[in-house]
């Protein structure tokens, strides 16, 4: 019985610790990125790099590899967001404009990532 109790305590403590740590780490997501260079990544490869401070307004259509789905990525007034997606959940559209280093726009069904690039003299 004591062994079970000890295990129970350990499990409770572990769950509490994970929750506390993730809560603290979540704060980063609300910080605005100082960067302007953005990468569009599909299937793990960078297919396009855009400098938001200099980019003209544009709509980029990105087909999924198998051609079954797509994303319309919009660049407008130095901001980037997904305007339209060919998937049912539309999470990437609801995410709105890219604003944080820690929170890239990810379209999981279409394997698309839009994120700030590390600016090291590119």
């Amino acid at each position, binding site marked *: 019985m004591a062994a079970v109790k000890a295990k129970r305590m350990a499990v409770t403590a572990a769950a509490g610790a994970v929750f506390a740590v993730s809560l603290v*780490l979540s704060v980063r997501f609300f910080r605005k990125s100082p960067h302007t260079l953005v990468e569009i990544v599909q299937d793990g490869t960078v297919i396009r790099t855009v400098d938001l401070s200099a980019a003209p307004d544009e709509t980029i259509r990105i087909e999924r590899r198998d051609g079954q789905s797509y994303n319309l990525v919009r660049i407008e007034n130095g901001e980037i967001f997904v305007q339209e997606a060919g998937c049912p959940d539309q999470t990437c559209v609801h995410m709105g404009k890219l604003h944080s280093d820690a*929170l890239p726009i990810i379209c999981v069904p279409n394997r698309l990532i839009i994120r700030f690039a590390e600016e090291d003299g590119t």
Partner: protein
Amino acid sequence: MSTRRTVTLAVLTGLALILFVLELRLPNLLPVPGFKLGLANIVTVYAVFRFSPKETALIVTARVLLGAMFSGNPSALIYSAAGAFCCLAGMIALRKILPAERIWLCSVIGAMLHNTGQTAAACAVMRSAAPAVYLPVLLAAGMTAGLFTGLTAQFLVKRAGAGNRNGRFG
């Protein structure tokens, strides 16, 4: 497996699917890929404490497969399956050490494992560590949601008849 048993499992699977579809209709509370309230998990938690691991696994497998079809998003199947089975394995291990008053904790840890599993699957599929950056937000939100679905399951286990752990009702 007796007919009665098969039917009971089928009813629970149906219940889980109803909750799943209902949740699809709700507006997304947090625009983070992979975040869900996990209402269908109420049924899973209930089954973990009332049915055998094998029977619970049957319910979860059927729910994950049919859910992917009903949501019209079969490409998300691999993530939800990875999450659901990590969660299930963890909760089955936990049911031995957690009493009926701590079912909510089982659900919270299940949520944690679900989010970890789906993130790992997303990283593997996308061949990128990028999905992992969502993990802290997913965990904070998912564990909170897991607390409430867990409490719901806890009330259910307590009140749904005087059946024993093997699910004999009445």
